[in-house]
């Protein structure tokens, strides 16, 4: 076996092209995913069993089947129906790019909805009751109290979900997209240097996850400031009662 560093250097621009597509897929489907996840999570905590049924079935299906099946169902499966092929949706569904985005968004929506549900249920009951006592309507409560609080609680877990999505985005290569993994496979088909190119791709994935983790640490510090805030007791008060010190 001959190890060839120059092949990595030579194809690095192509790999970075693939990296860009990977980031694009993660960013777009992450945003759509959150937009879908919030209403799903709110329905999931509803008091009515009828409202709870749909998000339950949705989450059960998307968390219980492999992402690869979901991608293939959308990309290959849609072409089975003449009605779909005749409709306006075909413009979108015949492109692997949009199929990947649809599959990733729906998949991450299911996982994120479950995380947001946990966060909503973790909000101390007193805060909701306080909002009610102030006469807030249900939508105002959700907008001003429930969602901002849930957002702070869900953040660390969502960071993990984002990294899982980054790793899942490599499946885009199975439907001919040239994301980082797809690009690596194309290069290897030409040069037959799997170890070098896969190593380079792996390092790029690691760097991206590292950046994600760092960003989420910062965001967490900022959004959950109250947890890091050290309460300062005025000096006069500590003279009255020394127990108030710290």
């Amino acid at each position, binding site marked *: *076996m001959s190890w060839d560093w120059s092949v990595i250097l030579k194809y690095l621009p192509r790999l970075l092209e693939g990296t860009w597509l990977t980031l694009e897929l993660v960013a777009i489907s992450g945003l759509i995913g959150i937009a879908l996840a919030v209403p799903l999570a709110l329905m999931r905590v509803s008091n009515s069993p009828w409202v709870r049924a749909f998000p339950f079935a949705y989450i*059960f*299906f998307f968390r*219980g*089947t*492999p*992402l*690869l*099946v*979901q991608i*293939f*169902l959308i990309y*290959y*499966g*849609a*072409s*089975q*129906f003449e009605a779909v092929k005749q409709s306006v949706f075909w413009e979108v569904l015949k492109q692997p790019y949009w199929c990947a985005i649809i599959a990733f968004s729906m998949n991450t929506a299911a996982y994120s909805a479950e995380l947001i549900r946990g966060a909503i249920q973790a909000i101390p009951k007193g805060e909701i009751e306080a909002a009610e006592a102030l006469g807030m309507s249900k939508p105002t409560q959700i907008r001003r109290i429930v969602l901002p609080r849930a957002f702070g609680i869900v953040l660390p877990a969502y960071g993990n979900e984002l*990294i899982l999505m*980054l*790793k*899942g*985005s*490599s*499946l885009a*290569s*199975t439907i001919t997209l040239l994301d980082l*993994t797809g690009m*690596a*496979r194309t290069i*290897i088909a030409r040069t037959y240097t*799997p*170890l070098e190119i*896969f*190593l380079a*791709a*792996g390092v790029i*994935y*690691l760097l991206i*996850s*590292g950046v994600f983790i760092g960003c989420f640490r910062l965001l967490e510090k900022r959004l959950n400031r109250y947890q890091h805030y050290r309460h300062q007791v005025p000096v006069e008060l500590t003279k009255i009662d020394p127990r108030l010190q710290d």
Partner: protein
Amino acid sequence: MDLQGFGHLLLSGAWVTVKLALTSLAFGLLFGLIGAAAKLSNFRLARILGTLYTTLVRGIPELLLVLSIYFGGSMLLMWLASFFGYTDYIEISAFAAGVAALSIAFGAYATEVFRAALIELPKGQWESAYALGMSRPQTFFRIILPQVWRLALPGLGNLFQVLLKDTALVSVVGLDELMRQAYVASGSTKEPFTFYMAAAFIYLGLTAIATASTMLMERASNPVSRGSRA
């Protein structure tokens, strides 16, 4: 759902999926225990290697791992074999590559689960076993492992679900498991939606069975529900 006589093909694929998942689980648990032991070791080098293992493997996609082991593994093996004077072509089977990739990935996550469980166990458990004259391996297998098992079970159950779904990735390198058979069937019938949906329901069934057996095992490992007075 009309499967047009391809039902048995899907079932045979499902059987390969189950075999792949269980084999990877066995190796993955082993990697997880070794990883946790390394991360909690007194030796600095072992701790560094353990951290390196979990950080690297958890940061790269499982698909990339499957592809590198399948395509890169045979090159690596041939290179190693050349030192022993073996120069013929060595090929890694898709099943072996799948087991290797999935168990390495499972092991990295299991390392964290086992580590958390080992830390949670009171130190007195080790000390009292030593005081009774047990050796280190005896203590580990008789006192520590049964208790760690109970603490780690919920986390391991979740990881097994992930493993079960990740087996679909091995279809990319041509192993005849459920996903690949659905691909073959949809290719010859021109009904991809039907067959991928059928595959999806089989995966749902498998994950449901996995969840149920994890719950049973959790109950069996809990002394309270077993009726003992622990």
